[in-house]
């Protein structure tokens, strides 16, 4: 399944993106509103969703939250907005990646490939890793906290695995961007917001993390 769902209210962008992505071998469906896109995704789930932020009716952020509520489908924001505030808000709503318009088609397909690789490499056969009450089971694609499964997205899971493989060592934001997102040069806010989201799920007190700690100026470390 290589389906992409494009949610954008601009007819020309929908059409040109559909044509360009079809050229690259993707099955593309398009929706002009968030409501339409959410319904479409519910009926026939696409592998990846591209979503604009400025949409009539339900806005992009709400759309991301709604899509996230149901499953861990990779969501990439493609927006003309490049304010830190907008980017962080979209990532916090649950987006896996953020691209500012205009995106070159080559760049877009590279992001889509990286997302797909992410979901596959998550299944590297490594025995379960446990850190106190936190358990990461790469084979099963599961995270447990005190024995109870925690729902994480694929990107979050991949990020946690990366940190778990190197538990006790500091991984820089740049290393994480390369290993999780396949960026050579990327936006470190991606890492920060995803770490924040992970903390919400695995830390008792996300403001004072015990597992996933920040090493000032260097990066992040998962405590053994």
């Amino acid at each position, binding site marked *: 399944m290589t389906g992409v769902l494009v949610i954008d209210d*601009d007819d*020309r*962008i929908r*059409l*040109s*993106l559909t*044509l*360009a992505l079809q*050229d690259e071998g993707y099955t593309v469906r398009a929706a002009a509103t968030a409501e339409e896109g959410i319904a479409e995704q519910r009926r026939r789930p696409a592998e990846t969703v591209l979503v604009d932020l*400025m949409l009539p009716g339900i806005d992009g952020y709400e759309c991301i939250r709604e899509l996230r509520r149901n499953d861990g489908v990779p969501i990439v924001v*493609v927006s*003309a*907005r*490049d*304010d*830190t505030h907008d980017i962080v808000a979209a990532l916090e709503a649950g987006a896996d990646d953020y691209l*500012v*318009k*205009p*995106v*070159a*088609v*080559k760049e877009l397909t590279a992001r889509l490939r990286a997302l797909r690789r992410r979901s596959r490499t998550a299944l590297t056969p490594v025995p379960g890793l446990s850190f106190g009450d936190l358990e990461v089971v790469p084979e099963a694609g599961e995270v447990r906290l005190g024995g109870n499964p925690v729902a994480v997205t694929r990107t979050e899971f991949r990020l946690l695995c990366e940190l778990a493989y190197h538990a006790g060592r500091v991984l*820089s934001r*740049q290393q994480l961007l390369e290993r999780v997102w396949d960026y*050579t*040069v990327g*936006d*470190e806010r991606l890492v920060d917001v995803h770490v924040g989201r992970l903390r919400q799920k695995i830390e008792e007190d996300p403001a004072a993390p015990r597992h996933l700690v920040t090493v*000032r*100026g*260097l990066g992040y470390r998962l405590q053994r």
Partner: protein
Amino acid sequence: MRRAGLRARVTAGFTVGALILSAMMALVSYQLTRNALLDERERTAVRAAYLEATVVRARLRTERPDIVEILRSLDTGQTRRAVLWRDGLWYARNADAGTTEAIPELLQRAARAGRPAIQRVRTQGQPALVIGVPLAGTTVFYHVDYLDELEHTLQVLGLVLTLVAMVTAAAGAGIGWYSTRYTMRPLTLVTSAAQEIAKGDLGARLDPATEPDLAQLTTSFNEMVNQLARRIERDRRFAADVSHELRSPLQTLAAAASVLGRRRNHLDDPSATAAGLVADEVTRFQRLVNDLLELARTDRPADRGPVDVVNLARQVCRSRRLPETLLEQGDLDDRVWVVDRRRLEQVLVNLIDNAGRHGGGACAVRLGQSAGLYYVEVDDEGPGVAPDDKQVIFDRFVRGRTASTRGDSEGTGLGLAIVAQHTAAHGGRVAVLDRPGGGARFRVELPVEPR
């Protein structure tokens, strides 16, 4: 020399004022008290002298009077001496030997001439009052009153008054300091509000209720901030709208150009060339829009965070396909700088791209630290920058001389202007220098301690 602060000046004024006032008061009271005491003492002494003179005169009338015995009979007390001059001879009690030296010549002459006289003298370091009362014929009675006790009293009084003057001056300084703190409080509030606003908090306002006397200031201040906030908000919205309106069609163009590019082989030559032109121009236009929007955001403060700059520079070199060996570290104690990562990255990228376009490629990228500032230097071995261009090169749409001749289509002419803007956002500065050995050296300096 820097002019002293308002508060220091007001306090100094209070101190000097209090000092002058209290010194004058002390001086006047001292003089008045001194004169009163001296006058009183003089009157007492004169009365005593005449009384004694009367007694002496009466006893002298007896036959063959024993003058020393007469003098001895006088009750002169501790500080007074009585001396008699008769027919060129001095008579004094044994204990009063030497008293005659205290009596000045002038006074003696006046008394011998039959005129009573009084004079204040200083004898053997002691102040004294000498009174001469002529008796009958060639006899003069002298009364000498030593004033050292009075002088001691006056010294104590002077000391006390000096102390009082000093304490008053200190109290004046204290009142000045305190009252300026109180009166300067509204100014302090305005200052801190202005600082908040300068830092980017446009919500800061003054409360007009706290200082009724300064209501006009607070009102105009708040009105000014409101206008500023409205203007910034309008600019921000405009930039956001422009951003959206320019980027959306560019997205369509980019995707459509990609579709065309994929079919390039199926197009005839002119169409393929045209498709290539469209694709190139879309890329360039995209860069131009990004740079313009970046420059439009002058109001944004630097979003600081700890950044491993060596890593960052390494990544930028890699992304620009430059060998990491270009990277040099000069005196770098701390490779983690508290800066806006995105901006610093863009500074590096733009300087390196600039060197690539106009200087034949960067030959060194240097990160270092000296005297309270971080610096970034990018060297090239190109023709360098003419002295006349060293300032304007950081202006918008100014391209190097070589660019126009080469028909350069890569640069937007905004790269160095963005470098200057990002540097300014950090409170730093950028300059272009001559590289030793030829070529240009762009140097960006950022203060270590954010202001």
